[in-house]
């Protein structure tokens, strides 16, 4: 059998190849360039991300219809759903790299190695968003995880960073084992690892597969679903599989935390959607209960535990857990609005969450204890821009209109109501009210408390200033201009093409 690769096949992986190529370039230049290393490495990585963004936008324009260019046996797709998540992933990677240089300098990191690992992780995430086969999902989840293990433990001489890297490594590979055991059972039940073929077998149109051999026994499907849910839940830090999150977020270098808090979720959720809502869509009566319970527990536990944190990174870790719960609400609705809400959420989440970490980063790069919430007292007097921007991020995370955070949450809960699960939306709103307790505490400290005598002014540096301004503007623009939401609607049209 010969394999014919067409231009469309290469086109579908072009954005991923650009990011991988950029990462290799970074490693090469790192070997030769000895002056202005950080500036050059940052420039190369941002240029790579921009180029990949252009390639992704081109793919979006080319794959205009819901049609699927690579045929039903494909492992990777260049569809609009994947491209939309590529936009979110490239955006979060770029925002994290924009605020990283001062931190890289003060921690004496090797800029080339550090940034190329971020690019490798980004490539793995993009591959994950584009995957149409359980095998590719497994490979890409490992590609992104391996890079993130090293990044979490990158500060080799700081025990907390070592501990973060090692904890993340052990728990994440433990979760991978569950994920692939689930995949093995689904493979046994359906006879294929290809998501489209799984849809056909479970949807009752067998015939494309060697259906005579198909086991198709329901215990395999049920256990497979449960095991895969455990695997995905670990990666998404969904309660009760969230224990690693606060420790890893607190211990890892702050630019890494900012990056992984958004990008890992923006990569795993599309794959989670493709596996559960698409491939196992016919089995939704089996998995709905699992996701329903996980969503409720995650929203409650994440928001309640965040209330008592004194470390900003831990607070944001629990806030991240809570937000994973909101997205899970949208996903378990299992309708078009739900998938749209998931896609829209991550564009918004990239701006507000990485923005919130920027404050920690700016203070840490100055050698201050940026992680301690108590040090934010009177920050408005020390740096108006930083304080106002962080205030906007906090209001957006809490879900105040007119910031985009409100609309993201609104669509997520609206999807649950449309699917007839008003209880999920009600619990979501109640837990959002609880979340005001910790988001507003930060705002009150910054604006309404007097600054300590002798505290210096804080200047963030040009790149960080640009990033903060862009994120604040982004939060209002994405929220108020309907074009972005329409983009998500179009992205989801390609996703649901197969189930109808």
């Amino acid at each position, binding site marked *: 059998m010969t394999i014919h690769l067409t231009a469309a096949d290469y086109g579908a992986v072009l954005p991923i190849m650009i990011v991988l190529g950029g990462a290799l370039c970074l490693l090469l230049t790192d070997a030769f360039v000895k002056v202005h290393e950080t500036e050059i490495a940052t420039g190369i990585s941002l240029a790579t991300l921009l180029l990949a963004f252009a390639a992704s936008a081109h793919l979006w324009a080319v794959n205009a219809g819901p049609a699927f260019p690579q045929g039903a046996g494909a492992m990777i797709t260049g569809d609009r759903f994947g491209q939309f998540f590529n936009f979110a992933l490239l955006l979060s990677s770029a925002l994290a790299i924009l605020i990283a240089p001062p931190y890289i300098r003060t921690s004496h990191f090797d800029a080339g190695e550090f940034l190329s690992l971020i690019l490798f992780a980004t490539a793995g995430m993009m591959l994950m968003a584009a995957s149409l086969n359980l095998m590719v999902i497994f490979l890409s989840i490992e590609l992104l995880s391996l890079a993130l293990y090293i990044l979490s433990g990158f500060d080799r001489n700081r025990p907390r960073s070592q501990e973060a890297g090692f904890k993340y490594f052990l728990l994440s590979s433990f979760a991978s084992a569950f994920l692939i055991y689930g995949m093995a059972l689904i493979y046994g039940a359906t006879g294929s690892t290809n998501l489209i073929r799984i849809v056909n077998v479970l949807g009752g149109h067998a015939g494309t597969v060697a259906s005579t*051999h198909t086991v198709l026994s329901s215990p395999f499907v049920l256990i497979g679903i449960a095991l895969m849910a455990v695997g995905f839940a670990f990666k998404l830090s969904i309660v009760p599989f969230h224990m690693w999150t606060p420790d890893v977020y607190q211990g890892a270098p702050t630019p890494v935390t900012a990056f992984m808090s958004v990008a890992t979720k923006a990569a795993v959720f599309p794959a989670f959607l493709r596996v559960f809502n698409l491939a196992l869509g016919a089995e939704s009566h089996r998995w709905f209960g699992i996701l329903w319970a996980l969503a409720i527990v995650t929203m409650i536990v994440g928001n309640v535990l965040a209330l008592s944190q004194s470390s900003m990174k831990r607070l944001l870790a629990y806030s991240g857990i809570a937000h994973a719960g909101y997205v899970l609400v949208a996903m378990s609705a299992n309708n078009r609005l739900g998938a749209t809400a998931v896609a829209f959420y991550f564009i918004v989440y990239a701006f507000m969450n990485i923005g919130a970490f920027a404050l920690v980063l700016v203070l840490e790069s100055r050698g201050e204890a940026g992680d301690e919430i108590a040090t934010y007292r009177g920050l408005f007097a020390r740096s108006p821009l930083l304080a106002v921007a962080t205030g906007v991020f906090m209001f957006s995370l809490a879900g105040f209109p007119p910031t985009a955070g409100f609309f993201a949450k609104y669509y997520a809960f609206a999807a649950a109501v449309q699917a007839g699960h008003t209880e999920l939306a009600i619990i979501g709103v109640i837990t959002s009210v609880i979340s005001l307790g910790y988001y507003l505490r930060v705002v009150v400290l910054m604006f309404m408390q007097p600054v300590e005598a002798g505290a210096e002014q804080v200047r963030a540096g040009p790149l960080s200033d640009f990033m903060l301004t862009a994120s604040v503007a982004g939060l209002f623009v994405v929220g108020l201009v309907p074009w972005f939401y329409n983009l998500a609607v179009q992205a989801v049209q390609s996703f649901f093409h197969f189930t109808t």
Partner: protein
Amino acid sequence: MTPDASSYLIISAILFTLGTVGVLVRRDPLIIFMCIELMLNSVNLTFVAFSHYLSSADGLIFVFMIMTVAAAEVVVGLALIVSIFRTREDIDVDQLDEMHG
């Protein structure tokens, strides 16, 4: 008498459970690491059994992927363990408790 697919599946389920229990009860990172490898290999056995039973090659290719990834994980994992070992004398996971709350 050749054993049928279900015997292989039962064996691999037992191995997977042993690995899971090992990860949860042992405290030495290397042993935990070995238990994770045991879990991965029990999955490999499942894939091979299904692949043979279904006469489909997908499962066999998956096994190669898992073995490659497991090798890469060993590299990163051992490197992390070595870097921790350089700064402290012993590595018991219960002592990795600098952060909690």
